């Protein structure tokens, strides 16, 4: 292939509709492709309901859901209180799981004695799904709220602990050796080498933890509470109003997404040294 043809082919390629479309779409900061795909999703959903495809007989369409939302939820105190209640439970459970889980993970990873005593019990309890704790939690805790927060805590706690534990065990020996050679005390090594070394695993634990916490809080609310977004969704089901169910689901999705954004932001600040 002669140079001229190759160059010509290149010029042609850059003027082709595909690349032109790409460059246009990347100009603006808005994710046009994302918006387009979401719009398609709603169209498909609406279409499936309108054309009564199999299974969609009882399912409400997007327009119905939007109307129900605007009329019965958007301006009601109860709806936004549900948001507040669920968020509160998520934050409590999540933060408590960090406060208890991080030190536990660090101890399990650094002290052989502690590990020998505690890890077997920990490992036996870890596979128990958080929701299986609900009946016991209700019996144990004096208030309903406490028992729900306990469930969300359990959800995140094991994940966070096991992540930190793993992180401690994966610290490069050389990092510790170097610090020791340079004369650092044990405390200094812990503060300036071990802790920062496990920050990435704390971040991973947080990302996984927040997802699990939302999972768990919704289910716990369905089973054991009279408030929150999970309860709202459940009430829609038992009262045979599927529009409410979908409103609940979308609300939960948005709430979860917002939480993830916040956690991501926190993580980025925790690790300024990461290559962006």
């Amino acid at each position: 292939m002669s140079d001229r043809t190759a160059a010509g082919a290149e010029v042609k390629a850059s003027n082709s509709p595909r690349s032109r479309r790409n460059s246009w779409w990347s100009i603006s900061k808005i994710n046009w492709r994302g918006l387009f795909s979401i719009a398609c999703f709603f169209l498909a959903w609406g279409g499936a309901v309108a054309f009564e495809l199999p299974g969609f007989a009882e399912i409400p369409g997007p327009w119905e859901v939007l109307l129900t939302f605007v009329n019965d939820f958007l301006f009601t105190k109860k709806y936004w209180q549900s948001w507040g209640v669920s968020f509160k439970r998520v934050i409590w459970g999540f933060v408590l799981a960090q406060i208890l889980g991080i030190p536990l993970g660090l101890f399990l990873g650094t002290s052989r004695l502690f590990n020998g005593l505690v890890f077997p019990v920990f490992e036996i309890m870890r596979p128990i799904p958080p929701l299986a704790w609900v009946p016991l939690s209700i019996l144990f805790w004096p208030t309903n709220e406490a028992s729900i927060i306990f469930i969300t805590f359990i959800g995140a706690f094991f994940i966070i602990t096991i992540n930190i534990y793993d992180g401690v065990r994966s610290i490069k020996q050389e990092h510790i050796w170097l610090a020791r050679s340079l004369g650092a005390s044990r405390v200094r090594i812990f503060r300036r080498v071990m802790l920062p070394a496990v920050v990435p695993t704390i971040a991973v634990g947080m990302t996984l933890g927040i997802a699990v916490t939302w999972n768990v809080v919704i289910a716990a609310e369905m089973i054991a509470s009279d408030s929150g977004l999970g309860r709202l969704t459940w009430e829609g089901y038992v009262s045979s109003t599927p529009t409410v169910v979908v409103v609940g689901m979308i609300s939960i999705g948005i709430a979860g997404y917002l939480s993830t954004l916040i956690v991501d932001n926190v993580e980025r600040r925790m690790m300024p040294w990461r290559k962006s």
Partner: protein
Amino acid sequence: MSNSVGALVGDNICKTYHIKGQAPVQALKNCSFEFDPEKLNVVMGTSGCGKSTLALILAGYVRADQDSVTIDGSPVTGSGSDRLMVFQETALWPWMTVQDNVIFGPLSRGESRAKAIEASDELLERFGLGDFKTKYPSQLSGGMMRRAELAQALVNSPKVMILDEPFRGLDVMTRELMQEYYLKLFEDTGMSTVFITAELEEAIFLADRIYVMSDAPGRIVEIIDIDLPRPRKISCTATKRYAELEQEVLAALYAGQSEDVSE
């Protein structure tokens, strides 16, 4: 005041690793040496011969089966800032800036922050990293990271520098640059060095003396003086003497490979 110059002496060092579920691995057996202070001592051997184990024992991170290493007459029982090691993979702490990495040593020993920064700045300038002291290691190239590590070690004025295949993994050009760089550093400071490598050319180019190791279990089987003139230039690799030395070292390496291990 002791005549502390960084003379490392090893007396029949043995080291066997016991790993759960596997047969014990004998890395070193009857390894003896006397590393001259203020010289660039190179330990050369093929992969797996125990060179890294030897380096770790010298640095004090691993203990030999019996305590058999002394530095200027005192036994080596653990790590210390008199023997600093540069590992095969960078050990710079990724969450600290270059400057924080370098001042860590002085700060750990109680020096004031101002003094530590002053010393660190001077070294980093000399090493051409003055503009990078607020950067993180992930923002540096391979060669720059190695230089930062040298600064991190040298700011503590160690008696001995132990380098375990420090330029492995660098591209050819960077590697040659780093070799020349370290040579100049050594020739300027006279820092006692134990340099581990598996590269023949690197060994001869840098060394005052090459200690050839046998295959595992490793021991020093031959000591070859490299009498090429200092300061070393790349041009010395084209001389007749260089070629002779190459043959000598190769012969010693091969002899070490066919050693009867059942001694």
